[in-house]
C-alpha cells in the first residue's frame, strides 16, 4: 500500500479498453500542475497503456498499487 494522497480519483473499473486511459487523460486535462490523480482500473491493458502515456506526456507515474481485483495508478500532472 502506498501512502500517496491523491487530489482526485477516477474509478474506471468495469470500463473496456481504452476507457480507463481516456478517463485518466480527461481528468488530467482539467487538473492543476502538481495534482496527483489516482486511476482505478481492472483492465490489464492499463498496465502498459498508462505508463506509456504518462511518459509520452511527461507526467510522472508515482506508483502502481496491485489490489485484489484491480490496480490503482497514481499519476502526477507535470
Amino acid at each position: 500500500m502506498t501512502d500517496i494522497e491523491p487530489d482526485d480519483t477516477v474509478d474506471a473499473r468495469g470500463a473496456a479498453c481504452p476507457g480507463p486511459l481516456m478517463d485518466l487523460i480527461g481528468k488530467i486535462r482539467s487538473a492543476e500542475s502538481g495534482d496527483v490523480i489516482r486511476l482505478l482500473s481492472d483492465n490489464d491493458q492499463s498496465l502498459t497503456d498508462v505508463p506509456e502515456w504518462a511518459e509520452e506526456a511527461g507526467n510522472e507515474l508515482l506508483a502502481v498499487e496491485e489490489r485484489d481485483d484491480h490496480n490503482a495508478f497514481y499519476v502526477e500532472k507535470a
Partner: protein
Amino acid sequence: MTEHVVIVGGGTGGTVLANDLADRLEPELDAGDVRVTLVNDDPDHVYKPVWLYVPFGQREPDDGRRALDELVDDAVDIRIDRVSDIDTESQRLRFDGDGPSTEYDHLVLATGSTLEPDRIPGLTEGGHNYYSESGATDLRDELLAFTEGELVLSVIGTPHMCPAAPLEFVFMADDWLRERGLREDVDITYTYPIQRVHGNPHIAEWARPIMEERDIQVETFFNAESVDPEAETVTSMEGTELDYDLLVTIPPHGGIDLIEEAGLGDDGWVDVDKHTLEAEAAENVYALGDTADTGVPNAGSVAHYQAGVVGQRLASELRGRPATATYDGKTLCFIETGMDAASFVEFDYENPPSPAPPSEKLHWSKLAYNESYWLTARGLL
C-alpha cells in the same frame, strides 16, 4: 390506472423505442392502460450519419431531417419541450418555460451527445467539424476552397459519436482529393488520443496499414490542449505542435447536465447495468444509446438494438412479468474507406470485430442503409 412511459430524446434510440412500444403495447395503448410520451426539444428527428457526406458535396443536411410526427406512431404522444429537471424520487419531469410538469411510471433517457468545443481554447474559432449541421456545411465551403496545404483531422477525447467516422473522413478526403488531382498538394494528418489509430485494437490494426498505403500521416498519443487560430497550430497535452491550414476535429462530447444534476452519472452519461440498461442510481429509469454508459460505441446501431431490448423489458414490466431481454453489446458499422469502397464490422461484448475487406458492394450497402434508415426510425427494419 394508466401507466405512463416517458422517453426523453427523439434521436435514433428514442424514436425507435417509441415506435417499438406503439407496436408491442397496442392493446394496452388502445385500452388506455398505458400512455407513451416522447419528449424532444426539436420537432424534427435528425439522422446524423448524413453529415459525413455533406463536406464532400454528396448530401445536404435536410436529407437527414424528418418531422417526428411523421415518423412516430399516432398512438404515441409527442411533446416538443425541453426538460429542465429530472426528479427520480417523485418520478417527475419539469420543463423549461410554463409547460406543466409530468409524472412518469417508467422513464427512458435517450438524450444523446452534445458537442463541447469550448473545453479546448481556440477550438471554436480554429476548428471545423462534421458533427453538426452547421459544422458540416461550413466545412464543405472550406474543403471546396482548399487546394493545397496541411489538412489535420484531430480526434479530441472519447467517447464521441460514431467512432468510425474519423477514419472514414480521412479515407474519403484522401480519395476525393486524388479524384480531383489535388492530393499531391495536400498533406493529411490524423491524430488520435491513445497509442493507436482507433479505440478498438482490432479496428486500429486493420486501419493503420491502409493509412500508410494512402500516405496519411499519423500522430498517436495526441490530446489537443489548445488551438491557435492566428498561428494555425494545434498543440497537444503531450507537447506536440502541428501546423494546419484546415483543421477538422471531433470536438469533445458530453451528455446533458440534467443527468449529473439528477445524480444518475458523471459527464451526462447514465451509469447503467450494461445488460439490462437500467440506471444504477434510480428506480424505473432506463438509458439507451450514447446516454447509457455501457462502454460500447456511440453509434446508431447500438441505440437501435438497445431500443428493442428496453421495449421488450418495459412491455414485460407493464404486463407484470419478469423482464428477461438483455443487451449483449451488439454493434454494427459500415466504414467508408474511400468515395466508392467500404468495410463492415459487427461485434458485441464477447466477440471482437473483424473488418471485412473493403468493397464497392459494401459502400453501396452503406448508402442503401442510409436511405432505408427511415424504416428503422419507424420501427419497421
